């Protein structure tokens, strides 16, 4: 049994929270540049110019990319042959997150749902654990802002709705959200599973690279077609019109109950901040 000191987890998590909030992933930045070149509208081009400049400034100055540094969401894959020593893994991840948000001058956005009083340290981190074979510990972190999260939905369809029903719902959702979630967006789509699994999968799907291709050719085709169709909405960057409403559609499928066709649409803003570390 391999062991990892809890302090290593704390320090790695703190660093990844800071980096995620200051360094836009390269694939997203490249997508901004490609989209800027492809856009014909001057307003859309100008938004991309600002976003590219913002990313460079954030990296250089240490100011977070966005003032909404998000709730800190973690997907953890814990090998069966590894254990964390000194503290519980949940406690270590939360402690690392608190440290990172404090030391990185990141905004704390977690509050009591009724009193609306800020918890003051962005805790608790939202952590999804999975147990996998092997002796590695893989931690993926997303800084997920409230504006795009508010535009997300879960819908339990009857099986008869089929892909046609899901597709219509997703396109209508993006249309209704319009400029609110900071387009150009990414769409994480969870299909199947049950009520909560669809939602978790829709978020997990957003960890993929923006231009990667789904290993299942059928799903890859749906992603490609849906992306093209969503971009026909013409909402454009920040809702000012243009071809880039959505940068990528990522679908994660799971088997579901005979009676259900669950769908979750997790909307991600253009500041698609995530980071991964393997210990």
């Amino acid at each position, binding site marked *: 049994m391999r062991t990892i000191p809890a302090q290593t987890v704390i320090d790695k998590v703190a660093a990844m929270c800071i980096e995620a909030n200051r360094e836009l992933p390269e694939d997203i930045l490249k997508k901004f540049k490609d989209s800027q070149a492809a856009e014909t509208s001057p307003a859309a081009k100008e*938004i991309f110019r*600002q*976003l590219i*400049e*913002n990313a460079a*400034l*954030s990296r250089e*100055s*240490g*100011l*977070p*990319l*966005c*003032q*909404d*540094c998000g709730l800190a969401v973690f997907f953890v894959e814990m090998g069966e042959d590894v254990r964390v020593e000194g503290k519980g893994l949940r406690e270590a991840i939360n402690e690392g997150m608190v440290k990172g948000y404090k030391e990185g*001058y*990141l*905004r*704390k*956005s977690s509050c009591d749902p009724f009193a*609306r*009083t*800020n918890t*003051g340290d962005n805790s608790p981190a939202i952590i999804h654990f999975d147990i996998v074979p092997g002796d590695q510990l893989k931690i993926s972190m997303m800084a997920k802002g*409230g*504006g795009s999260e*508010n535009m997300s939905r879960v819908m339990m369809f009857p099986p008869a709705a089929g892909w046609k029903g899901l597709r*219509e719902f997703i*396109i*209508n959702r*993006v*249309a209704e959200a*319009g*400029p*609110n*979630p*900071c387009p150009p967006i990414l769409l994480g789509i969870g299909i199947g599973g049950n009520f909560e699994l669809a939602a978790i999968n829709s978020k997990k799907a957003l960890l993929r690279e923006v231009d990667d291709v789904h290993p299942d050719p059928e799903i890859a085709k749906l992603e490609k077609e849906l992306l093209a*169709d*969503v971009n*026909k*909405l*013409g*909402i*454009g960057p*920040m*809702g*000012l*019109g*243009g071809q880039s409403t959505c940068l990528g559609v990522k679908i994660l499928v799971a088997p579901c109950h005979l009676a259900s066709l669950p769908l979750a649409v997790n909307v991600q*803003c*253009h*500041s698609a901040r995530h980071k991964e570390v393997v210990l």
Partner: protein
Amino acid sequence: MAEHHLKTPLTDADIEKLKSGDVVLLTGTIYTGRDAAHKRLVDSLDKGEALPFDLKGALIYYVGPSPAPPGRPIGSAGPTTSYRMDTYAPRLHDLGLKGTIGKGKRSQEVKDAMARNKAAYFGATGGAGALLSQRIKAAKVIAYDDLGPEAIRELTVEDFPLLVINDCHGGELYAKPDLEAALG
């Protein structure tokens, strides 16, 4: 589309010349306020208490900045989504608020309140908080310190870059989604 250099406080004449799509470079004093601060402002009005700043000619920026690192007046400071303040905005416009700064759509009630009070809704680029913070020269908390990022701050801005989303003449900048084309 015109470009305007405006100074706070804003007047009826300032607002009347604005058309949706115009660029505004704003200089002067603006106030931050988002969800929790708006609730407190309206609670104060209900109780007949004075507000922490004068609404006449004022602008509210819907923002909860990140903490200021050493040597800077403020952290990142881009707009939050505006619709969440729609329930409060008409009342504040009726009391003299001349403009709000945010991102995303407004309700018809807010648009009506802007038309009747000669006020405007400005968009700043969402997710460009590091860049926008460069135009903020000073910041101080003037109310509700306990709200942390949601406290009301007085900001001194120089040439703060805005787009007129809704003008006081009924103009609207946001593109209407082409559902027919997308659904096919």
